[in-house]
């Protein structure tokens, strides 16, 4: 699929993600015990044969740069093509911070112009799904669209969460006739997944035109304005898809990964999911360990009880500790006899001996990085 280059937009600051994004881009959020959100879209691109990916990043991008490095783990450390990082910069007319997603791409338009690939796929960095983008390309060419937007029926979401999405309406031919970004009163169940394919030359034109008019947002200022003029078609994606754009979606997505069927779809169909390796030794269970219905990454030492939880690499669960319905990130230590229920612990947290933390499913307790409780 070397006809296509990928652009990943890592997005702005998501206040709804609270402490978890205090010091990291939402695309760098740890998920599923050993991954970062961006691993999924990046692996989808690699598995689809895309070998040139630009990552447009702005907010707290250090964590993301750290994670992606030169792209080794994704096989993107190439002599030609590979991984390109686009943090904001100052130069000439450039004002520094990106004013929107279109501005982010426009600021790096020379990357698009120098490329020779026929198509561009644009995607966000904070969504969890497994997709062969060749299917999107096929559909795009077959329906002779100018732009094809991937969408999904969101009936499996809480209706309140639909407010977070861009809802679309299609006509009988599958053409998108209406697109509303984050509507106050959601109408319909079909939402754009923020994944688009179009000719590279068309994208360059659209970005230049928009910038000339002082417009900077790709959805509001380009897609919505062009619904009449361009043939913008839909392509329905039917698989598992979650966006990490609120604490409850983040919590539920992690819990979904315990489910063997979703696990199978995400990790064992259409290629693997790649991530930065940590060289941890396999997890050790001591005599007292009781673990049920949970996923556990490498490098943990477990002497307590763990139920319905997600443990990242290097977590320690002390003797007599009981962990339920919780997400525990890298290198966090739960000391003996501590009790956790509905808790999200960020990296390198220490929960002291005998402490109890109890949240609720709808309001899990969140503890930020490096905190001692």
């Amino acid at each position, binding site marked *: 699929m070397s006809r296509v280059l990928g652009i990943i937009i890592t997005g702005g600051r998501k206040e709804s993600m609270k402490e978890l994004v205090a010091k990291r881009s939402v695309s760098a959020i740890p998920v*599923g*015990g*050993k*991954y970062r959100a961006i691993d999924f879209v990046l692996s989808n691109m690699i598995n689809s044969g895309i070998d040139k990916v630009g990552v447009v990043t702005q907010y707290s991008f250090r964590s993301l740069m750290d994670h992606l490095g030169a792209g080794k783990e994704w096989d993107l450390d190439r002599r030609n093509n590979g991984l390109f990082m686009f943090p904001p910069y100052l130069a000439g007319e450039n004002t520094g911070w990106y004013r929107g997603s279109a501005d982010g791409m426009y600021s790096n338009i020379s990357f698009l112009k120098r490329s020779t690939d026929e198509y561009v796929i644009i995607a966000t960095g904070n969504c969890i799904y497994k997709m062969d983008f060749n299917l999107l390309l096929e559909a795009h060419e077959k329906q002779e669209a100018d732009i094809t937007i991937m969408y999904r029926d969101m009936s499996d979401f809480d209706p309140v969460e639909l407010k977070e999405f861009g809802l679309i309406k299609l006509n009988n031919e599958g053409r998108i006739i209406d697109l509303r970004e984050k509507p106050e009163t959601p109408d319909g169940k079909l939402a754009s997944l923020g994944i688009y394919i179009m000719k590279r030359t068309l994208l360059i034109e659209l970005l230049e035109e928009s910038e000339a008019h002082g417009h900077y947002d790709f959805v509001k200022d380009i897609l919505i304005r062009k619904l009449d003029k361009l043939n913008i078609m839909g392509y329905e994606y039917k698989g598992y898809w979650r966006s990490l754009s609120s604490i409850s979606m983040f919590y539920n997505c992690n819990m979904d*990964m*315990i489910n*063997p069927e979703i*696990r199978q779809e*995400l*990790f064992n169909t259409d290629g*693997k*999911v*790649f991530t930065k*390796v940590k*060289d941890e*030794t*396999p*997890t*050790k*269970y*001591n*005599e*007292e*360990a*009781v*673990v*049920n*219905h*949970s*996923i*556990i*990454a*490498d*490098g943990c*030492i477990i002497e307590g009880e763990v139920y319905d939880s*997600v*443990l*990242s690499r290097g977590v320690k669960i002390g003797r007599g500790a009981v962990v339920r319905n919780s997400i525990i990130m890298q290198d966090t230590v739960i000391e003996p006899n501590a009790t956790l229920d509905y808790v999200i612990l960020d990296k390198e947290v220490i929960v002291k001996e005998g402490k109890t933390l109890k949240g609720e499913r709808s309001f899990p307790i969140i503890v930020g990085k490096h905190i001692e409780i």
Partner: protein
Amino acid sequence: MATKELVGLLLAGGQGSRLGVLTSSTAKPAVPYGGKFRIIDFPLSNCINSGIDTVGVFTQYEPLELNAHIGIGKPWDLDRNNGGVTILSPYLKSENNDWFTGTANAVYQNIHYIDKVSPEYVVILSGDHIYKMDYAKMLAAHKKNEADATISVFEVPIEEASRFGLMHTDENNRILEFEEKPAKPKSNLASMGVYIFTWEILREYLIRDDHNEASEKDFGKNIIPMMLDENKRMFAYAFEGYWKDVGTIQSYWESNMDLIERVPDFNLFDHNWKIYTTNPVMPAHYIGPNGSVKKSIVAEGCMVYGTVRNSIIFPGVIIEEGAYIEDSIIMSNSVIGKNSKIYKSILAEKVVVGEGVEIGVGEMVVNTIKPDIYNTGINVIAESAYIPDHAILGKNVVIHKCVDASDYATLNIASGGTVFKGGTRHE
């Protein structure tokens, strides 16, 4: 190429025949260990952790898996512009075409590789042992003693000493005498097979030894005794810590089992001395609603619906509902079917065990075909073998590589039995 002070030379060409079917199609250093690693990861990681960034790996026997594992040395940070890892295998020359005929011969045949790097010292390593060692400290002792050769030694119980090559030293650790597996040991300082030589001197001895037709061209049997005879400055370097030979089925099994102790003598969780290896691309492992794991090690990608006790489970293993695993080592991507029970067994990679199977039950009878290899009750199931539903296997049973349903004449393999690929024999 800039000069390197110390270069690692890793002898990884041996078959390790005492590991039986575990090395039927792979070299011993490539045998998996500890839920994720291979034996060779230990000396290789020791090298990089000791600051050695140039390592030659000598391969000869079934090198395919070993070569694939080492690749260009990425996991050990040995993919260098200057130095890095180099695989040295036997090759055709204009004259004297030979396989490596001994450990010293392997190095002799690659003198030009070492000359090109032109190190002051070389450290000779083998791929047979599990240990963590700082070779830089040993080099410091070598330099301080102004030694020609330094041999690292390990104190073994005197009653076991006759299995080893033993050193007699004076009060300054200078080696006075070397005895290879003596019947009546006079010392308990065993050679670990880790040697540092001053390269210029070793080079001369390798050339002289090669001219000696009677020589077996072996470091322990020829080079070291010859140097001692000629009064070279040779010192013992005492190593303290965990060091285990994994050359037999029993010692290999024991060394794996050492890892599951609450506070193991050998700690792989030490972030200051990491052991590097290739990382499988797999998600975090899953323990099912009825799964239970105690006193065990479980790697990524596993799906555990059954029960695991005192065992080492490598990446991607599936243990189905009702299955029970005890005192066993299960290597990557094996599948254990529903309600199957496995006791004290080693299952190599991609073994498929059907449903309702029992392995490791019955009386203690040594293996009838290879009693010297399989005699401590451990069953060994080789790579990609299949065990049919409801089969019952005794103790010291061996199932050969790629055995499938058609290779079984009976589902009841008594203790000491062996199942071969194509042509079934049960004794």
